[in-house]
């Protein structure tokens, strides 16, 4: 995973709440066995509407998404994060994220910043006034700056540290390999085993 410190790019307003992962990427696009190449699947149903935000030339190359509350609800599909990332998004800002989506995002270098509803409204107004305006997101400072507007966002310390350092979770866990082995040595015999097949 690449280190993330700051990012500057076009901000797009997704003026909807409760954007579930079935909308971010419909199930028919989950059949691929690769981890990349999902850019065409992002918001696939909504993108058939010519007025959809990403179909507007000013936002076609957006890399920061500013959405209403409850972003990423529903299915656990990590493909939702891959589709956002493959399209070019590096940051999503929302007043509230679904838990599984947020966890998935942190593992793929997609920054999910929580901002207040008032800040979302203010950013949307800024974008509406100046379509295509750029935003700068600073993970170290936990701030997003767009035009004259400067807002703070929340992200938990652990995820922020991993994003800043570009650390791989499995590598981190395997530093505790001895503790895992000790735990396994004291697990009770009644716990389920899939093998041998009964």
């Amino acid at each position: 995973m690449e280190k993330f410190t700051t990012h500057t790019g076009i901000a797009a307003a997704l003026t909807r709440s409760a954007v579930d992962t079935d909308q971010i990427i419909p199930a028919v696009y989950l059949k691929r066995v690769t981890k990349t190449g999902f850019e065409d699947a992002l918001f696939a149903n909504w993108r058939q509407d010519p007025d959809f935000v990403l179909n507007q030339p000013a936002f076609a190359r957006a890399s920061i998404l500013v959405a209403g509350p409850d972003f990423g609800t529903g299915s656990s599909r990590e493909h939702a994060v891959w589709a956002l990332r493959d399209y070019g998004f590096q940051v999503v800002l929302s007043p509230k994220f679904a838990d599984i989506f947020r966890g998935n995002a942190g593992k793929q270098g997609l920054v999910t910043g929580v901002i207040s509803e008032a800040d979302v409204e203010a950013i949307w107004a800024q974008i509406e006034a100046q379509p295509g305006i750029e935003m700068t997101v600073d993970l170290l400072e936990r701030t997003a700056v767009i035009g004259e507007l400067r807002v703070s966002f929340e992200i938990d310390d652990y995820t922020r540290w991993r994003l800043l350092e570009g650390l791989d979770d499995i590598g981190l866990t395997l530093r505790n390999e001895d503790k895992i082995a000790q735990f396994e040595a004291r697990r009770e015999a009644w716990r389920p085993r899939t093998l041998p097949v009964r």
Partner: protein
Amino acid sequence: MSTTIPDRPRTLAEKVWDDHLVVKGEDGQPDLIYIDLHLVHEVTSPQAFDGLRAEGRPVRRLDLTIATEDHNTPTLEIDKPIADLTSRTQIETLRRNADEFGVRLHSLGDKEQGIVHVVGPQLGLTMPGITVVCGDSHTSTHGAFGAMAFGIGTSEVEHVLATQTLPLKPFKTMAITVEGELKPGVTAKDIILAIIAKIGANGGQGYVLEFRGSAIRSLSMEGRMTMCNMSIEAGARAGMIAPDETTFAYVKDKPHAPQGQDWDDAVAYWRTLPSDEGAVYDAEVFLDANELEPFVTWGTNPGQGVSLSDVVPDPASFADANERAAAERALAYMDLAAGTPLKDVTVDAVFMGSCTNSRIEDLRAFASVIEGRHKADGVRVMVVPGSARVRLEAEAEGLDKVFTAFGAEWRFAGCSMCLGMNPDQLAPGERCASTSNRNFEGRQGKGGRTHLVSPLVAAATAVLGRLASPSDLPAVEKVEA
């Protein structure tokens, strides 16, 4: 097992968590939690196995891992090659990965194949006091046994394959107490839909829900699985129900259930799991079971539901601006007018299946309503068992004859029209009464409209061709054999 058990009353969720602590996180770091059972399917695993291959890592515990094919599998002509090329590729990729890494796999055609959340419990792998994960949000189903069970993303699937652990922050706990006696025709599905409508489609976010109270105690394991299955639809990480005699009786003698001394040890431990007197929850919700009626969703998230006897709500009645906008959008998508009685809404299709309601008890409930009747003209009715074993069981009881005499399609096992990854989809504009778990836009097929209901309501709806409960049906007129 843990050396850090706090000296205070604890909830069920805390007990299971504490007993799986490998490393206690400090300074804001997550805990490292051991995973007892890892369920794998074809959709969220290919990239995880790729990751292992790239790093030269093996699967750490093949004996705690099991895979099945469910999301993409056809429910007709399962002996023929899968027509859809990308579906076939995904299934074949799972078979190749299972073979290469040595993972136990139940493939299409195998009698243990089926929806991953139906297969775990029926094999006796799901049991109280364990941790269960799967790359699927409906993993919450297994919490019905008093297990800590939750959905994970593909990176986490890779993490569990490689380490059998997950770094996690403790979840908050929410007690949902349902006291009283359910009226006839009111089921676990109605309880959970009512709960989601009450707390909202994100009311459970960050929480493990613990369902408790006399109405929950009286549910069968199938009913409890339906409740926990839909915990995720309230945004919760997991749902749990304390294990009791009903749980033990269900697990006992299943193929992988503990035996002999192991069984006695297990039950003795399981009896210690229910939340202690005085345990503190982060939130509490109460529901009166006596007042519940059959429930149905009218919108495009599972929290947008009302009693079946009610009308489609007016968006203007929502105080919250976001909820109001969501309701307006939902009514436009669903092509419904505010004030319309739900029972006047006609349907094109009825889907009886999914990890929410496809176990043998669900099929029996559906059959009990339709027996001796014929489906409404023009309504397509699909009955999809949760697993090959459930299908065999239903056929042994003659339920398949009831379904086909009714005019329903009796299919092979899989996720099917719950999410339409296989050919089982709604056409644009089609309206469906579905026993599944999600009514999102396009969930059952692009442009499809979904009303979530119980198996009993699905059955009555299939008879009348409009949303209905069994009490709306005339007495059975025997159909000529």
